[in-house]
């Protein structure tokens, strides 16, 4: 009886909440709001906030094309794997409470791995699609991955060293006791570095280099169309939420339930507000800068980004606790 319940709850977790359905719907909504805000920042009206849903519906009804030059199985599997890994990573992130749906001992490492799979899938999809623009884009993505990922891992390491654990739940409960890590001055450089790395992870300006439309059309996604592109859109939207959720858990205290007056506000509302703030921050940044070149991006990450993360790591290790 218990096993059946476990299986059912696992299925519910991965398919409905906080897995596939939840992350897709919230992701599409947030990216829709991002597009609307971008519109207003650029002094135009912008699309309605449900535009991503309309785009998704439209793309799903289009013809499914695999170019004859493409390596079919890889080309088709890439978006599915990307989306699957993002649904999986949501199981490990605290969404509805400090407890994630699935508990592992050192889940931070698994989360970092799973968050890289969409990027690797996009690179594979680009290389397998047989278009020179996609190949150029995939090559750039690899370089960018080498840039932001190390900064990302190093700053997370600073936080892990500070809390003394590789378990995300423990980091969240540590913050419930001792206050948000954002307010810790020793970790501030690392948090800035994390946000910079997230900007590159989410391919937002100034680091939208792999899909720079004026240079290499749509980068790795050039040959994708129809349902496969729809899956890519969803997985991009889901990635936005997943990365934001990880940042929220790392230094914004994770999802917390509040009681205002007699009304108890569930933790998922807190989660939605905090992720929204992170998404809006990336939106504003992407609207006030120009795209840099890939060599400049790499240089930026390997000097400025790593410097920030390393400062935090050293501060956390050297300066005694007080």
């Amino acid at each position, binding site marked *: 009886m218990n096993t059946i319940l476990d299986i059912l709850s696992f299925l519910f977790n991965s398919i409905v909440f906080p897995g596939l359905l939840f992350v897709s719907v919230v992701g599409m909504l947030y990216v829709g709001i991002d597009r609307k805000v971008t519109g207003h920042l*650029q*002094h135009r009206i912008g699309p309605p906030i449900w535009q991503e849903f309309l785009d998704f519906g439209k793309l799903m009804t289009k013809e499914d094309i695999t170019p004859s030059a493409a390596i079919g199985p890889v080309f088709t599997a890439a978006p599915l794997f990307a989306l699957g890994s993002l649904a999986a990573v949501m199981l490990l992130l605290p969404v509805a409470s400090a407890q994630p749906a699935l508990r592992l001992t050192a889940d931070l490492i698994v989360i970092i791995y799973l968050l890289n799979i969409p990027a690797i899938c996009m690179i594979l999809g680009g290389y397998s699609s047989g278009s020179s623009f996609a190949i*150029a884009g995939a090559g750039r993505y690899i370089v960018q991955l080498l840039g932001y990922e190390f900064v990302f891992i190093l700053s997370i390491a600073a936080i892990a060293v500070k809390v003394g654990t590789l378990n995300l739940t423990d980091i969240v409960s540590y913050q419930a006791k001792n206050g948000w890590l954002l307010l810790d001055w020793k970790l501030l450089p690392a948090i800035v570095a994390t946000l910079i790395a997230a900007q590159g992870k989410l391919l937002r300006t100034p680091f939208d280099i792999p899909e720079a439309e*004026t240079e290499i*059309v749509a980068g790795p996604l050039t040959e994708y169309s129809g349902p496969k592109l729809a899956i890519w859109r969803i997985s991009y939207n889901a990635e936005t939420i997943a990365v934001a959720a990880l940042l929220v858990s790392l230094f914004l205290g994770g999802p917390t339930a509040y009681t205002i007056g007699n009304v108890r506000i569930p933790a998922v509302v807190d989660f939605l507000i905090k992720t929204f703030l992170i998404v809006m921050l990336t939106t504003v940044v992407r609207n006030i800068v120009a*795209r*840099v*070149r890939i060599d400049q991006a790499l240089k930026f990450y390997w000097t400025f980004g790593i410097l920030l993360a390393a400062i935090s790591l050293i501060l956390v290790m050297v300066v005694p606790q007080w």
Partner: protein
Amino acid sequence: MTMVVPIGPQHPALKEPEYFRFEVKGEEIVDVDIYFGYAHRGIEETLARRNYKHNIYLSERICGICNICHSTCYCQAVERVAGIEPPERAKYIRSLILELERIHSHMLWLAVAAHEIGFDTLFMLAMRDREHVMDMREIISGGRVHSATNTIGGVRRDVTPEQIPKLMEKLDKLEESVKYYINLFQTDRTIKSRCANVGVLTKEDAIKLCAVGPVARASGVKTDIRVEDPYAAYPNLSFEVITEDDGDVLAKGMVRLREMLESIKMSRQILRELPSGPLRVPVDLKIPPNEAVQRVEAPRGELLYYIRSNGTEMPERVRVRTPTYASAPSLKPMFVGGTVAEIPIVLWSLDVCFACNDRVTLVDAKTGKVSVVTMEELRRWRK
């Protein structure tokens, strides 16, 4: 080992179809071949088949962005062939709409350049501020893009005293936004990192390859047809020829931005000093055999019209040389040595306008042999 990267004929960085064949080593460009001719429309031939009045309409359609330059240059060439002189007021109005056109063309350049370096917010804002110029053009001529103001022997539309305060007000708004963009170009780090030391054209190359307009001026060559071969009201206007020394994309942008300020200044002066008098003089379209060359400083540089008349109402030959055609050879030194990521912005730093530029090129699909069709051959086919 080099790889060929095709840019065009269909590519999101190109607003019009042309083909650039880049040979790249990794990300570095080692060579480039430029193939023009995808947007040929046979306009020079058509110009020789219509009468002088109809040709004003046609010459305006050579380029959508700099249509007034084309019609002004055409009308001035015909006036020179016919030996007539337009009245002073017409000359001032011509200069006014020419300067407004320069502002709107440079604004468009700014917008698209921002888009090419991935700065879409600046793209949208520049397009928004460009609306001020479009409104001014609409006030004067009734058309936002095509003004249809020029005619042989003068202009067709007047600037009334009631319009002048409105135009002055718009000019103030414009000056404010242009000053903001100049400041932005000088201070924004991401813009600098994409534009400084990119696509450099040295002064020697600019002179050797006969670059024109802002491209040459950004390399330190002080050339401006408004000064060298004055036309319209320019002899009476005070303005400065803007030059920069660096020759990179940033310098080309700064030249255009500062030229906008000069244009605003000139427009104010024209509106203040607008002389009274008739708008046009009558002209007999049966022009005796004669020939003339007329040059105009278009927003992109020197625009040249050659007209030969033969005693009928139709010109014998009209030859148009557009600024993009003159500046195209400068692209090669600007590209070679750069990276693939720089292609769109370097190409756009020339403010390329292909539709006005194209000539017939025939390519034999089997052998790949390229031959250019001459006027003689075209004429032979016609008969």
